[in-house]
C-alpha cells in the first residue's frame, strides 16, 4: 500500500461523512480565515501609514522647537516665535541644505454654505511639494505667482469639498478664513489614516502673516543635498538655530527623525497585527482540538472497521497512517477554504477602510503548512488509539 492509496482511503472516509467533516473543518476554516484577513488588513494599514511619508526620502529632516518643561507649565511658549524669517534665511545659506520647507498649521472653524466644520488650514511654500506629493483631482496647483504675489487662493481636499459643498461645484467659490476671502482653485486627494480623513485646506504661506497676524513659522523641514551627510548637516542646522535663538526662549531646537518615526510606526502596527493574529491563532488551536475530538469519536465509531482492516493484514503503522492522513486532510482542506475566505474577507474590509489589502504569500503558505501540522499534532492521539486496538476486541465490537 503506497501513500497515494492511503490518501484515497482518507479522502473517501471524509467524503462519506460530509456533514461531520465540514463541521470539523469549521474551526480550522475560521481560524485560518481570520489570520489571513487580520494580517492582510494589518499590512495594508501599515503600508498606508508608510505612504503618509511619501516624498520624505531619507534626506529630509524635520526640526522642532522643544520648550523646557518648566516653561511649558507656564503656558507662555505658545506665544513665542519658534522659527523667525531670519532663521529661515540663515538655514537656506547653510552649505549642505538644498531646501528649507516651512509650514504653518491652524485648525479653524470655517463656515461655508451654512456648514460649520473644523478644518486644518496649512500654509505652504512651493518647496512643500518636495516632501509631500499633492494629487490634484480637479482645478490646478498653486502657481509661482500665487506664492510670490501672496494671492488669496486656496486648495481644498476631497473631504473638505464633500463637507462644505455636498457634491456641488467648489472651484471658483470663495472661502472666508479669519475674515479674509480665498478663492478655491483646486481640489486634491488625501489618504485616509485608518479610515479617518480630516478636512484640509492649503494656502500660500506668504499670505499667512496677513491672515493670522504672525510671521512666525511653526514647523520646518530641511532637505539635505548629500544623503550620506543627513545627520551631520542636521546637527549643524540645529546648532546654528540654537545659537541664533533669543535668550528669553527657554528650550532648544531638535531634529525629528522621520525615518525613525516611520520605523516606530511600522513596528507598532506590526505588533498590533501580531497580537490580533496571535488571538486568531489560538482559535486555530481550538479548531485543532475540535478535529481531535471528532477523530476520537470517529475511531470509536469505526472500531469494527479497524478490526477488519487489521484481520486483513493492516499493521499498526498502516492504521496510524490512515487516521493521521485523514486528520491532516481535514485540516488541510479546512485551511484552504479558510485561505479563500480570508482573502475574500481582506478584500471586503479593505474596500470599507479604503486601503489596499496586502495578501502575502508567506502568510498563505504558512497557513497551509500550519493547518497541516495541526492535523498531524491533533491527529496523533486518535490515530494512536486506533492503531493500538487489539484486532479481536475490535472485531467483537458491537456497532
Amino acid at each position: 500500500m503506497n501513500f497515494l492509496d492511503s490518501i484515497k482511503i482518507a479522502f473517501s472516509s471524509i467524503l462519506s461523512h460530509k456533514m461531520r467533516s465540514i463541521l470539523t473543518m469549521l474551526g480550522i476554516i475560521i481560524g485560518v480565515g481570520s489570520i489571513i484577513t487580520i494580517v492582510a488588513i494589518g499590512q495594508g494599514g501599515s503600508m498606508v501609514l508608510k505612504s503618509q511619508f511619501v516624498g520624505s526620502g531619507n534626506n529630509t529632516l524635520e526640526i522642532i522647537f522643544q520648550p523646557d518643561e518648566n516653561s511649558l507649565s507656564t503656558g507662555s511658549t505658545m506665544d513665542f516665535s519658534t522659527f523667525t524669517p531670519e532663521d529661515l534665511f540663515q538655514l537656506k545659506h547653510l552649505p549642505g541644505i538644498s531646501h528649507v520647507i516651512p509650514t504653518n498649521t491652524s485648525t479653524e472653524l470655517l463656515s461655508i454654505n451654512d456648514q460649520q466644520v473644523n478644518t486644518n488650514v496649512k500654509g505652504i511654500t512651493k518647496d512643500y511639494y518636495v516632501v509631500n506629493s499633492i494629487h490634484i483631482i480637479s482645478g490646478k496647483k498653486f502657481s509661482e505667482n500665487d506664492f510670490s504675489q501672496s494671492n488669496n487662493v486656496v486648495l481644498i481636499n476631497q473631504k473638505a469639498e464633500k463637507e462644505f459643498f455636498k457634491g456641488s461645484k467648489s472651484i471658483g467659490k470663495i472661502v472666508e478664513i479669519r475674515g479674509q476671502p480665498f478663492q478655491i482653485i483646486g481640489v486634491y486627494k488625501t489618504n485616509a489614516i485608518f479610515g479617518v480623513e480630516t478636512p484640509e485646506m492649503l494656502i500660500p504661506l506668504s499670505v499667512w502673516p496677513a491672515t493670522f497676524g504672525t510671521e512666525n513659522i511653526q514647523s520646518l523641514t530641511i532637505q539635505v543635498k548629500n544623503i550620506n551627510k543627513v545627520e551631520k548637516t542636521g546637527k549643524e542646522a540645529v546648532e546654528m538655530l540654537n545659537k541664533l535663538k533669543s535668550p528669553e526662549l527657554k528650550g532648544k531646537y531638535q531634529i525629528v527623525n522621520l525615518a525613525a518615526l516611520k520605523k516606530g510606526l511600522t513596528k507598532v502596527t506590526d505588533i498590533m497585527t501580531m497580537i490580533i493574529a496571535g488571538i486568531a491563532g489560538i482559535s486555530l488551536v481550538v479548531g485543532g482540538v475540535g478535529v481531535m475530538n471528532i477523530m476520537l469519536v470517529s475511531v470509536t465509531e469505526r472500531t469494527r472497521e479497524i478490526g477488519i482492516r487489521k484481520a486483513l493484514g493492516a499493521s499498526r503503522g498502516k492504521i496510524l497512517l490512515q487516521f493521521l492522513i485523514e486528520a491532516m486532510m481535514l485540516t488541510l482542506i479546512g485551511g484552504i477554504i479558510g485561505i479563500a475566505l480570508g482573502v475574500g474577507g481582506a478584500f471586503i474590509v479593505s474596500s470599507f477602510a479604503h486601503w489596499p489589502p496586502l495578501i502575502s504569500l508567506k502568510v498563505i503558505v504558512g497557513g497551509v503548512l500550519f493547518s497541516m501540522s495541526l492535523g498531524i499534532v491533533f491527529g496523533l492521539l486518535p490515530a494512536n488509539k486506533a492503531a493500538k486496538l487489539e484486532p479481536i476486541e475490535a472485531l467483537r465490537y458491537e456497532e
Partner: protein
Amino acid sequence: MIYLKNIYKAYKQGTFEVEVLKNINLTIEQGEFVSIMGPSGSGKSTLMNIIGCLDRPTYGEYILNDVNILHAEESKMALIRNKYIGFVFQHFHLLPRLSSLQNVELPLLYGGIKKRERYERAKEALIKVGLGERLHYLPNQLSGGQKQRVAIARAIVTQPKFILADEPTGALDSKSSKQVMDILSKLNMDGTTVIIITHDIEVASYASRQILIKDGELVQDGRGRNEFLRQH
C-alpha cells in the same frame, strides 16, 4: 503446516484468572478440511483467534509455516495474517462503504499489490464465487449469502495457506448456507486448507476431520464424516 503444542490461554477477569484453553495439541496439514466444534464457552473462538494470529497463547508453541508465533512482532503477525490466512466471519465483516470489488481488493492493498493486478485478481476471485456480475455493488445491495460469498472471495484473493471460517453460515438461511459450504468444499478440493469453527453438525459434516473442544480441552479428533456423526 499448523503445529500447536501445549497451548494454554488464560484471561484475567478481575482478580480471577479464567483458563480458556488448556494443553491443546493439534497439527493440521496442508490440504485438510477441518471443523472445530464445541458448545459456546468451550474456547473454540479463542482457539480460532490463536490459529488466525489475532491473539497469542499465554504459553505454548504455535508454529505456522516454520514461524514461531509466540515471539513474533505485531507487524510480523499482520504480515502473516495478510499472506497466509483468509478470514471468513459469521457477520461477513465487509466495509459498508466499499463495493464488492473494493472489499476484495483490501487485503491486496495491504499486501502492496499494484492497482492493475489488484483489480484483476479481485475480479477473478469474485467470478470464482459466482459474483462476477456484482463487482460494483455495495454490501447493503447484496443478500446475506452474496455478502458471505464476497467475504470468501476476499479470503481467497491473496491465495492464503488456509481459510479460517468462523461460523460462516451462522447468519444465513439453509439455501445460502449450502451454497457457501459448497464453495468452501470446492476450494478444498482445489487444494486450499479450510478450517471451520462451528457448532452446527450439518456444517461440520462437510469437513473430513472433526475436532471437538469442551471446557478448553480437545476431547475428540476424528477423521471421516460418518463416524463422527454417528457418535453425536
